[in-house]
Each structure stands twice: as C-alpha cells, then as structure tokens.
C-alpha cells in the first residue's frame, strides 16, 4: 500500500456512490440513443443532458477514488428498457433514465454525511428538472417508488 492511498470510506458510502455511478454510466449510454433519434432543438437538449451526465459521471469517479474506492467501469453495452425508433420513444427513454438517476442519488441522501446528502439532493433536483422537461409534466416524488411511498414504515433497516 502506498502512502498516497486515501483512507477507505464506509462501505455504505462507496456502495451508494457506485450505484449512482452505474446509473450515470447507463445514462451516458442511453442519451446517445436518445439523441440519435431526435433532431433540432430536441437533439440539442439531449446533447446538453448527455454532457451533464458525463460531468456527473466524472465527479462520481473522483469522489469514489478520493474515498479509496475503485470506480466501476461502464458496461460495453446496455439493454435498453424500451425500443427507441421515434422522437416520442426517445423522450420516453430520457424520462426513464432520469427517473433511475434520481432514485440512485436518493441513495446518497440516505447517508449520514451532510455534504453527501446535499450533493445527492442537488443531483436528484437536476434529474427531476431534466425528467420534467422530457416528460412534459412534473411529478410529486422524483426518484421515489410507489412502494416506498405506500409503506414508509413497513420494516426497519
């Protein structure tokens, strides 16, 4: 072990950061498909969001390294959850990507560090804003599943 190895963070912190990174890897891949099916201002919007996800990915990789972890690599390819052939389907995929991103960053909000919580919450907000733009409407609980909302006290973790 070299003297430059940072102290390892709590496993829960690294797990949550890796989950967010996995979602960002998927979003970077997915937005490539989104943009390929759009034109004009919609393609420009997809490109802007694609870049935002690359920046977020880089940020998470740096956060993981600074905590003594090794950032997980992107998969070579991702099986898309929807078939994308039309602009409407491209927008639907973008919505789906942002929902997953918001959920992943809520994992950071559950950690105990104040700075990590705030970082996670701001990323949830960014995902919610992008998602609302693609959806054309807002939602009450970005990132939270119906199950989480229906039974908030069902079991203790």
């Amino acid at each position, binding site marked *: 072990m070299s003297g430059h190895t940072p102290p390892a963070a709590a496993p829960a912190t690294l797990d949550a950061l890796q989950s967010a990174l996995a979602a960002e890897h998927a979003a970077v891949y997915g937005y490539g498909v989104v943009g390929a099916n759009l034109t004009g201002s919609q393609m420009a919007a997809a490109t802007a969001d694609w870049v935002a996800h690359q920046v977020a990915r880089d940020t998470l990789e740096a956060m993981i390294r600074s905590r003594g972890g090794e950032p997980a690599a992107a998969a070579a390819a991702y099986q898309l959850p*929807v078939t994308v052939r039309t602009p409407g389907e491209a927008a639907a995929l973008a919505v789906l990507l942002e*929902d997953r991103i918001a959920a992943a960053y809520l994992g950071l909000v*559950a950690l105990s560090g104040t700075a990590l919580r705030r970082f996670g919450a701001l990323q949830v907000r960014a995902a919610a804003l992008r998602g609302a733009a693609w959806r054309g*409407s807002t939602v009450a609980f970005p990132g939270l599943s119906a199950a989480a909302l229906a039974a908030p006290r069902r079991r203790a973790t």
Partner: protein
Amino acid sequence: MAAHPTRRVVLAAAAALPLAAASGCDGVDVLAAPPRPGPAVSLLRSAIAAEQLMVARYEAALDGAGAPAAVLEPLLSEHRAHLAQLRSRLVVPAGSPSPSPSPSGRRAGAPAVPASPAAALAYLRAAEQTAAAAMLDRLPHAPASLAQLLASISASEATHVPVLDAAAADRTGQAPG
C-alpha cells in the same frame, strides 16, 4: 417540448426491463427506516407546516382573479401529495395534542396572493424556490428515510419553477396586463 409519453407507459416500461446492467443495488431500499421520535418529529412538523403553506398559497391563487387554473391545479395536487406523505410519516403518540388542527391546511388565514395573474405567478415562483431550499436545509438532521422524502419533495418543488416561468411567458406573449 418533448413528446408526451404518459406516465403509465413510462412506468410500465420501467417495470418491464431494468436498464442498469452493472448493479442491482437500489438506493431507495433504505427508505423503509422508520422516523425516530424527538428531533425528527419537529423536523417533520416544520416540513408539514411548509407544505400546508404552499397548499394554502395555491388555493388562494386559484381563488383569485385570472390565475391559470390549468397550470396551477396540477402543481397544487403535487403539494397536496407532499403534505399527505409527510403527514403519513408523523407518528404522534396517543393522547398528544395535535399541533395541526386544520386537516386540509385551508383557510386558516389565507395567504395574501397578489391579485394580478402575472404577480401571482411571480409570487408562487418565489415561494417554490424558498420552499425547495428550505427542504434541503432540513436534510442534515433527518433520519435517512425522511431525508430521502424531503429531497424528493424539494426536487419536485424545483420543477414547479420552470412550469410557472412558462405560464408567465405565455401570458406576456398573449396579452399584456
């Protein structure tokens, strides 16, 4: 700007085939942790009071002249959902006095929303920004599951801002005054 896939379609697609290849870990699992009594309760009460105020502001704006109901109603119903979800987390021991006697948050002295539609939209926009920021300020001391709910609500409120902006832009594009 985007096409309008219905939420049902999108959620169905989400259920059908998970996208993430790398990790099955779902950070939202920790949501199930119960709120502790004590500091969490006062935190929750302040969040509930904040959402009651937002509901009251939208109701007052909708009662006023000319505010675009088609824009405001969906936002109001999201605030009502926030309020209901926050209240569902509040576990009050039997026999405790209730600090919130007004169940709907309505008409306990309605907020003074500006009368002109443009000013009402600007008022609501500022209120949303303040409320979203205040939700974030509650995060440090919240139990994990409540922190996630507050962050989600804050994000939802942040998404209301561009909706109100678009409504204001529509108005100025149509008819001044």
